[in-house]
């Protein structure tokens, strides 16, 4: 965890504000484009926001928050109650959406999904790659950074407003895509589903705000052997591994509890996990808020 002071709250579009967070007593941890942090709000809720400032600025972080009308208390708190001058706890940056080297990029952002894309586009352009952005939103008034992006990158940025032009034609984008280009897409579920349907999986990287709709086999109970402490924890069919571990006294942290943020990553040393997250766990890891077991026992390094 690190601490930062909320220095400024800047309106950046209808229903969206940027928070500028200054490191409390020293530089903040370094990050790469695509990274996000957990912000611990004064109302005890923890929320994940992509870093959308300049990675070279180690004194402050910038995140941009959209006010969700169905807010469970995170974005509503940020918009209505959060005050400047407040010290907040922030996690170290985590990157589930890293920018891989490529000669050409197509970035696709929907609404507030622009936030991780802003530093990615800057980094790609700086590296001398061919980079384009298709930025989709209802209207320019609701789209953070639309003007700045047009001003900085000119014709490389295409603003597509659905109020005027309907949904963008991703199939046409896919048809003219350089086969070596990488496609990065962040936005609402419907946009990501469309992108996954038209772009080759090997070229596409996505980040979701909320989990994709998925079907799994029925849950069953299983055991988790915590090898470092020598204890075994029973996970009920209606219980998550995270809850079972927390209830047994293992303080595994958590964030979204939906398999999209990565806060609850734990090391797996035996058994076969059933990965149900939207991040893609690396070998030897699992996100225990949603993932379960295919084997009757799992062994974890706790």
């Amino acid at each position, binding site marked *: 965890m690190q601490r930062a002071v909320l220095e400024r709250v800047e309106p950046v579009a209808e229903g969206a504000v940027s928070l500028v967070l200054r490191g409390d007593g020293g530089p903040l941890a370094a990050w790469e484009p695509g990274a996000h942090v957990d912000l611990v709000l*004064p*109302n*005890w*809720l923890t929320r994940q926001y992509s870093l959308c400032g300049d990675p070279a600025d180690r004194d402050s972080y910038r995140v941009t928050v959209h006010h969700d009308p*169905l*807010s*469970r*208390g995170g974005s*509503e*708190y940020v918009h*209505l*109650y959060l005050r400047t001058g407040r010290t907040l706890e922030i996690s170290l940056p985590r990157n589930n959406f890293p920018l891989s080297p490529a000669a050409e990029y197509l970035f696709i952002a929907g609404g507030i999904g622009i936030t991780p894309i802003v530093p990615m586009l800057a980094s790609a352009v700086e590296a001398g790659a061919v980079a384009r952005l298709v930025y989709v939103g209802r209207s320019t008034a609701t789209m953070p950074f639309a003007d700045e992006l047009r001003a900085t990158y000119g014709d490389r940025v295409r603003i597509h407003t659905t109020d005027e032009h309907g949904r963008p034609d991703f199939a046409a984008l896919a048809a003219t895509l350089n086969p070596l280009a990488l496609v990065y897409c962040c936005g609402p579920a419907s946009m990501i589903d469309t992108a996954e349907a038209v772009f080759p999986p090997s070229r596409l990287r996505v980040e979701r705000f909320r989990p994709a709709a998925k079907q799994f086999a029925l849950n069953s109970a299983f055991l988790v052997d915590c090898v470092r402490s020598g204890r075994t924890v029973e996970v009920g069919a209606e219980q*998550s591994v995270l*809850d079972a571990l*927390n*209830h047994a006294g293992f303080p595994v942290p958590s964030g979204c*509890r*939906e398999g999209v943020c990565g806060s609850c990553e734990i090391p797996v040393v035996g058994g076969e996990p059933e990965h149900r997250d939207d991040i893609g766990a690396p070998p030897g890891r699992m996100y225990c*808020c949603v993932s379960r077991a295919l084997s009757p026992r799992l062994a974890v390094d706790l």
Partner: protein
Amino acid sequence: MNSNDVAFKARPRRISHEEVRARIGEPEDLIKSKVHDRIDRHSRRFIAHAPFLAMATSDATGLPDCSPRGDYPGFAKVLDERTLAIPDRPGNQLADSFRNLAENDGIGLMFIVPGVREVLRVNGRAYPTDEPDVLARMRTEGKAAQLAIVVEVAEVFFHCGRALIRSRLWDPASQALAAELPSVGEIAAEQMGLDIDPAVVTRMLEAEYRELY
């Protein structure tokens, strides 16, 4: 009656409201003006920081009931300046509040913010709902509330801090009072006539308390 109770010769004397008024006086106009019919920005901010409220309802005969509700600060949602929603989380399934509201829709709420001496009072009319857009705002730890209580606000006011000051409610030293009470296991074992070691009952309850949602 406990044999140690001081025996009254008769029930304590009942006095009329006129006699009460004669003793405590009439409220000043300034005090009356603090009662609002809607949730202003100060009340909204208070509710957004309250992790606890007491909810009073009563049945058709007027017999009241007061029930605690709590979660993260702001768990009760302000839908608009005249409407609140309170999530219903798993409890004891007695549904006393819901049964009362079916008979009598009056409701009284008292919001508490730790560290603040004043409390916020909200009175109004209420009904249960399963409206998906309301329940969606109440998901906690990945679980939705099963139901919510919608409160149509009639009166909103801040209640002065004297009771909380006198009670030393936020003084950490007050927590020493807890050590003077029997454990929850001892109380439950005796009240429910269980022939079980109270320590076991306490442990069972502690295990249940870990499943909050």
